[in-house]
């Protein structure tokens, strides 16, 4: 997020696109809800489904699935035509504006209405509300990123914010909501194939030198590694022989689950490290039982880039170890003695080799509610919002993108579009939440949400069972009839391994980020 969570309280306009905020980021949603209720903030929700937040929205744009680039370009087209763009900001802080102008010029309201299904008046109203306010915030989540055009979607959000000067100040910016307590931290720490901690490229000789020196080795491999989706493909091809998976359950969370199972079975060695015995763990040659959050100390970096200390509440259960200790043991046995005494030692190292984390020391975290990076030294107060006077790269580069249609559009054989997501009471593949009785009681099974008109056409009643079939598999689910979802679109969740919706989803990936699209075409028949 370019802003901090607290800044939501002072925003004048929220443009929420591809985020079911109430279910997935409830504590952020409450700030949106309260800003709307108490301070008359305006709320624009762009989502094909009538999600809970949409019920409070000033304007709900039900754009077609995967038409985000067209929608965003369309808004920018109107903004430029009306002269609502931030001319001074564009001049002082951005570059490549002509490229943007050239592309968005093509996205006339007529064209955009045709692609997105959003009428001209709503487009104009949304553009006006967003552009004219002083403090407008873009809020997005996986509904923007999980597309073959995921990178294009993100760039288009950034283009819109720069075009209107809605970034670099309090309560206005671009806010991707991170879905797990430490997914920001995992990325920050270089759990990515191409960077060390603090996003220092593995290909940069200077960065390599710093880390080689810190770790006492003569040289480090400067080759960019593989992403998760590429690893699974590599395993199926036989190029990847061994996988070591920590705290992830790709057999249930990745698209095209049958393909994942085939790939994992081909491995010579599969190691799974988790706090519970997961579906993926059942395919493993070696399972390493890890300790839970309550049984270890360490730091988490949340969605607002805030690093917070977490303390050990109870000692690890017998037979388990905190992840950091398991990694140290494995490394040591593999010939590289790794001898950290505690997570404090590890944080000290992070401080030494990660400029954005240099000032986020144990001594400071111990006595605070955490610090947001960048925090370059111990006197620095941390950074609540990013890009204050200049962008990280200097000038903000516009990079307008063209709309591309989704990878697997519906057709005669598979006439429905299946989208997947989560509900508030379950988390991800349910490894943890399905073991909590009240959470499981609230959301005990997967259902297929369907529009009443579709249900009538298929002669289905609420609760009736259907076979949902895609090019990759078939899953049987009870139907939940709701007008919250548009016609020819169906929705289900991926929390339930016994009805694994990801056996249906498609692993078409974004060419840059390699993130999968999931959304796919399905057919539905009554059984």
């Amino acid at each position, binding site marked *: 997020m370019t802003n901090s969570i607290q800044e939501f309280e002072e925003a004048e306009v929220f443009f929420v696109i591809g985020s079911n905020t109430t279910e997935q980021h*409830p*504590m952020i949603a*409450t700030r949106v*809800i309260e800003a709307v*209720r108490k301070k008359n903030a305006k709320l624009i929700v762009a989502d094909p489904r009538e999600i809970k937040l949409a019920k409070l929205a000033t304007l709900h744009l039900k754009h077609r699935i995967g038409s985000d680039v067209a929608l965003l370009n369309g808004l920018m087209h109107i903004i430029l035509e009306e002269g609502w763009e931030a001319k001074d900001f564009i001049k002082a802080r951005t570059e490549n504006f002509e490229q943007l102008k050239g592309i968005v010029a093509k996205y006339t309201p007529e064209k955009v209405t045709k692609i997105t299904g959003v009428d001209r008046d709503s487009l104009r109203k949304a553009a006006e509300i967003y552009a004219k306010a002083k403090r407008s915030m873009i809020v997005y989540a996986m509904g923007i990123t999980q597309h073959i055009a995921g990178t294009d979607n993100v760039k288009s959000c950034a283009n819109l914010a720069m075009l209107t000067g809605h970034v670099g100040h309090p309560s206005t910016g671009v806010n991707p909501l991170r879905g797990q307590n430490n997914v920001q931290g995992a990325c920050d720490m270089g759990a990515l194939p191409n960077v060390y901690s603090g996003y220092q490229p593995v290909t940069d000789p200077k960065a390599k030198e710093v880390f080689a020196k810190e770790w006492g080795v003569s040289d480090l491999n400067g080759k960019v590694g593989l992403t998760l989706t590429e690893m699974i493909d590599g395993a199926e091809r036989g190029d990847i022989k061994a996988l070591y998976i920590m705290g992830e359950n790709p057999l249930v969370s990745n698209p095209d689950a049958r393909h994942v199972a085939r790939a994992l079975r081909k491995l010579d060695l599969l190691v799974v490290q988790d706090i519970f015995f997961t579906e993926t763990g059942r395919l493993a040659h070696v399972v390493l039982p890890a300790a839970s959050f309550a049984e270890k100390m360490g730091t988490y970096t949340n969605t607002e880039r805030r690093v917070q200390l977490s303390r050990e509440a109870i000692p690890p259960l017998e037979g388990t170890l905190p992840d950091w200790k398991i990694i140290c043991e494995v490394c040591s046995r593999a010939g590289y003695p790794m001898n950290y005494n505690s997570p404090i030692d590890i944080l000290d190292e992070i401080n030494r080799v990660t400029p954005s984390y240099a000032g986020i020391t144990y001594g400071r975290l111990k006595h605070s509610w955490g610090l947001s990076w960048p925090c370059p030294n111990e006197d620095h107060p941390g950074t609540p919002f990013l890009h204050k006077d200049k962008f990280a790269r200097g000038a903000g580069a516009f990079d307008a993108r063209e709309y591309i249609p989704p990878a697997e559009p519906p057709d005669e054989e598979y006439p429905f579009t299946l989208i997947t997501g989560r509900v508030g009471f379950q988390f991800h593949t349910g490894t943890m939440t399905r073991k909590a*009785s*009240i959470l499981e009681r609230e959301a005990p099974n997967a259902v297929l949400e369907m529009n009443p008109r579709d249900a009538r056409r298929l002669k289905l009643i609420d*609760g009736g069972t259907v076979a949902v079939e895609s090019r990759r598999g078939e899953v049987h689910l009870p139907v939940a009839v709701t007008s919250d979802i548009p016609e020819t679109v169906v929705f289900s969740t991926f929390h339930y391994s016994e009805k694994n919706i990801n056996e249906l989803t498609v692993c078409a990936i974004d060419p840059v980020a390699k993130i999968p699209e999931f959304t796919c075409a399905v057919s539905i028949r009554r059984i």
Partner: protein
Amino acid sequence: MKRLKKDNVVSFLKEMNKKEKVFCPQSVDGRDLMFMPLEEGVYTGNIGKTTISAKTVLFPQTEEILSFTEKSISKTIDASKTLLFGIRPCEMKAIQFVDQFMTRDNFIDPHYQSRREKVTTIAIACHEPPSDTCFCVDAGGMPYLENGYDVQLFDAGDYYMALSGSEHGEEILANKYFEKGDEEDKERLEEIKNKALHSQKNSPGMQKAIEILRENKPDEAFWEGLADRCINCGGCVYVCPTCTCFNVYDLPSQGGHIRCRSWDACVHAGFTRETSGHNPRPTQGSRLARRHEHKLKFDIVNFKESGCVGCGRCSDTCPVGLGAIEIIQELNAL
């Protein structure tokens, strides 16, 4: 009437702690004020208003109620002598309310009752409201107690004035830390009471809200409109001093199983969903209606008093303004 110097409170509590477990409002590192076992150096004398009420002591968030194997079953009773120091009058009222509920129709909850019997209460009257959301007077209560306590303390600056409300209270007042007061203490006490009664500014209008509910004025749209902003976290229920609904489940334990109960919340769909899948409270709006009708309508039918004591904890906790105060205000606006 006696006096307890504030400087002597910790010494007194330490002495009591030798014989029974003392719980009092404490906050660790500036975090939420909670009822916790007395810890030297943590207790600061700040009584305030705890985030969660003292019900955590009598009715813990999670407790084992029985254990069983294939051959045997035994009730788990875990109660020891406990002193609750620093509970507020509204909480004492809530405990009295829960006492009725837990023993209704001679159906006695043995786990609650066994703890309750062993609890001594030292309440501290509110000479001024501990927070802006306090509305006990509006809710038909008072910032001090007429009965139900063992000892009640009144803040008189450097010391507390102490009244006993039971035989056990008399015994406590015999403790050396309680000193004799002077002639004017009686007058002083009336002054504090009077000032306390008039210091509460918050009056959302509960009696009128009760009338409005009795007349069935709020329709479905009213409740569904409020529900649009409910995030279904259950926070209002968990912090409520009179909410006692729980869920029961079994867990494996050494050589057998234990049955536990944990706090549950009526705002969750699964709370009322039946095995068939039918839910008599099918929407979030209907569940919010049930919750507030329960407190302000049906409790009055069953117990002759409302289930809301005006502590304001739900309003402190709800992140989207759906606590009792806001609901009462919304009802009043109908």
